[in-house]
């Protein structure tokens, strides 16, 4: 039971991060355009954490 609960919590945590990175309103337009105004460490973090699917979509634009 304990194991099952911790698995459920992990799944939920992953779901939460997946939502935050891949869904939701974007008001800055093209992500790559905002790069110029944002410091590089931050940009690196964002790109690192983006899912493969997001990176592929951005690359296809």
């Amino acid at each position: 039971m304990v194991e099952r609960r911790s698995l459920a919590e992990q799944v939920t945590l992953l779901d939460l991060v997946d939502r935050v990175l891949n869904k939701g309103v974007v008001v800055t337009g093209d992500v790559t355009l905002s790069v110029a105004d944002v410091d590089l460490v931050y940009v690196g973090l964002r790109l690192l954490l983006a899912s493969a699917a997001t990176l592929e979509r951005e690359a296809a634009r």
Partner: protein
Amino acid sequence: MMHLYAFARGLRELEAELETRRFGSLLAVVGADEPDPLQHGLVVEGLLDRADAVLPVRFGERFGTEDELAGAIAPRLEALEAQLDHVAGCVEVGVRIVPRDEPADGDDGAAYMRARLREQLAADEVHRALAVKARDSVRTNRDAGYLVARADVDGFSQAVQRLLESRPGLDVLCTGPWAPYSFAAAT
């Protein structure tokens, strides 16, 4: 720097480190911190219980000045207000079909495709049955999101439960209630 978390309406209270800016009928919820994605998500989920309507913003929307924030929102204000109207009073329930009969090593291609087809048909059926009970729905293959009025969440999860009991061969993972990320489109 300001980090944008969400747009809201009918906000009753706010955590100390957050602030709001008003645009039309919207409140933009911002903070000076640089959250990581998990913190961002937890803040947005926390808003869900404190507001009449929450429209989540994707992680990574940062603004150097008030003018930059206003400049980004102004041209999209009508679209944002319409999206907030759409999700008002609602939460998102996530439903994922978990494949049970993954083909074993040594299965041939035909067996693999049959397993995929069975999975697909089962997912279609589940989605059709649940979509009619939701205000809106989106689906990508195994994952679906349902926009459900807050008051209907119990009824919706009971419907999921009944569906599971009537289809013992199916593994379904139900998550939520979430802030309605899947119904907050890029503008």
